[in-house]
């Protein structure tokens, strides 16, 4: 039998997995809608203006025709009717949904991008260099540096600068120390400083444990509420609080990969650590990260919608799906479309990411691949 390439096999498996395929198609559709939405709702004279207030047309149901006589020409909605109705200020909900799609998309992707980058970095260091130990003198130097920085920030100028200088001096000293000692025995009192204190792996994994102790939504809510409201803060905060899963996956993959023959062969050929990590190990470690990233996007979109719903999202007048739903909650009986349009949109997008992620997990599962 002819051997198929990985990509062909991947496509074949994807086509067999109907749920995953549906997820992928919906996701691509959502991507296109968000992009066209961005184009159509921005600019000086957009086709769909999400910000036009028409108080005489408030709370019109979906698919209703506008009263052309009472509107100025630039106030007529894009499609000649209100596809999803209007809200309590008479703004076109369809236009606002289009605007909100881009927010959901970027928040999802950027937040997960940040968390995956941190995850690969930390997990990679922990898995590849994890057996190396940090020496006592290195721990002391970093404590001195951190303390100096903290004091400088808190206002104790002279002490902080002093500690920073001492720390940097020590770094230069230790960089040259090999040349200084050059075979001479290290004095006894120094030897305590050169003992191994803690392995890098332990250090990073304990840090992961610490981060996992925080209740995630509560932490995100706290930080977002204390920072000035903006889309970038939300993305960064979500990204910075959700990298622990990716770190663990990358670490586990690296631990098993570094024992494999092709890595040993690369090392025997004298390939540098850097090249081994980026050319040989990361491509092989990507499968579980990809799966968790896809599901992470779904979680990030849900988190952003929750934040917007509580009023900590992207500041108004910019529309977000959670925000539209939050504005509409006072009218759930009179104007249920204000709840259902954004709610169903979030549901479909999140569902598509979840389905695609789970399908990806099945497809990338080596047990399944060998069988086919």
């Amino acid at each position, binding site marked *: 039998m002819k051997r198929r390439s990985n990509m062909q096999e991947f496509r074949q498996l994807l086509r067999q997995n109907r*749920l995953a395929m549906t997820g992928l198609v919906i996701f691509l559709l959502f991507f296109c809608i968000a992009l066209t939405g961005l184009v159509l709702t921005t600019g000086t004279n957009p086709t769909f203006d999400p910000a036009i207030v028409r108080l005489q047309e408030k709370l019109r149901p979906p698919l209703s025709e506008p009263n052309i006589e009472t509107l100025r020409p630039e106030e007529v909605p894009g499609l000649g009717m209100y596809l999803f109705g209007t809200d309590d200020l008479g703004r076109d909900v369809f236009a606002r949904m289009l605007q909100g799609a881009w927010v959901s998309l970027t928040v999802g992707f950027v937040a997960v991008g940040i968390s995956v980058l941190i995850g690969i970095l930390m997990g990679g260091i922990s898995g590849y260099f994890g057996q190396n130990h940090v020496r006592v003198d290195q721990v002391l130097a970093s404590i001195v540096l951190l303390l100096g920085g903290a004091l400088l*920030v*808190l*206002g*104790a100028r002279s002490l902080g600068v002093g500690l920073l200088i001492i720390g940097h001096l020590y770094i230069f000293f230790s960089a040259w120390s090999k040349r200084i000692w050059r075979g001479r025995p290290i004095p006894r009192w120094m030897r305590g400083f050169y003992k191994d204190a803690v392995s890098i792996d332990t250090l990073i994994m*304990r840090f992961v*444990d*610490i981060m*996992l*102790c*925080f*209740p995630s*939504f*509560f*932490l995100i*809510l*706290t*930080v977002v*509420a*204390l*920072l*000035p409201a903006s889309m970038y803060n939300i993305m960064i905060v979500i990204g910075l609080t959700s990298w622990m899963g990716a770190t663990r996956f990358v670490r586990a993959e690296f631990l098993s990969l570094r024992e494999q023959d092709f890595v040993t062969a690369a090392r025997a050929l004298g390939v540098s650590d850097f090249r081994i990590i980026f050319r040989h190990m990361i491509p092989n470690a990507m499968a579980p990260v990809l799966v968790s990233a896809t599901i992470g996007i*779904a979680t990030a979109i*849900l988190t952003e*919608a*929750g934040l917007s*719903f*509580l009023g900590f999202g992207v500041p108004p007048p910019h529309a977000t799906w*959670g925000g539209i*739903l*939050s504005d509409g*909650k006072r009218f*759930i*009986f009179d104007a*249920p479309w204000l*709840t259902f349009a*954004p*709610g*169903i949109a*979030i*549901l479909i997008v*999140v*569902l598509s990411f*979840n*389905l695609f992620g*789970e399908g990806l997990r099945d497809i990338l599962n080596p047990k399944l691949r060998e069988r086919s």
Partner: protein
Amino acid sequence: MLSFIGRSVIQKIITLFFVSIVSFLIIHLAPGKPSQVDPLNPKFTPEIVERFRKEFHLDKPLYVQYVYFYRDLFTGKTVSWKDNQSVLGKIWERFLNSLPLFIVGTIITWTLSFPIGIRSAIFRGRFYDRSATFFSYLLISIPGFFFAYILIILVVTRFHVPVIGMETFGLGDASGLRLVMDRVWHLLIPSVLGATGGIAILSRYVRSQMLEVEGQDYIRTARAKGVPEEQVHYRHALRNALLPFVTMFGLILPGLIGGSVIIESIFSWPGIGRMAYEAILARDYPIILTVNFISAVLVLAGTFVSDLLYLVVDPRIRL
């Protein structure tokens, strides 16, 4: 065994120490100050702000504040900046409100997900399994607040019962049964909402555990020697598949204080989540930090309990 307990307790205390530092730094290094006041409010004169800063040690350097705060926390003397009430007392009061939600939600989760998961494992690949899978993805993906409004619309228009709050206001002279039913309705909807995610995840997990056990050799042996199908599933497979779930009793511990912020604010339920949300809005740092600290303690205690339970339940694990 004893050395394992000792080691993990020490490790957890160290983790807790760092958690306390990190959460303290996050809150205090964020822009804006708790003593920042509304310039339009005539009650806040500079003298009052100064007194406020002095009273809560806000004029001291950060590490002194840290020591003061955790000393107060451990002696139980922390007070809220808003109303000078004891933080632990406030949390306890709100905790008692959240507790029924947690208990009912947990019961719903555990009683529903096991039958669903087991059934979809037995009927693997058939219609029941596929629809259960799809529904669990649906439940994971639905935003809690959207689902809440769907349920509210449904219940209010169909059964004509009010559901917001802990009980209907002004039902004092109603008959006993009506009072009870009122409480039940108010409790049921938020609990169901709190349970949805749990049902979806747990039933999937039960299913995968069952499938894994059903693939083992001893199940094939049991079938081969002619054990009835019912008995294979419930006596041979299920009992082994249940093992990991015993440990999950430890992992639900953090849910005690987690209390969903969103659901409690939709239903005006005066629980812990809502209190934390109000504290965040009011920049009431002692409450935020205390809730954070207690939940970190519960997370650590939960993992500890689940490790211990694993040791007790699974004879294959030796230390």
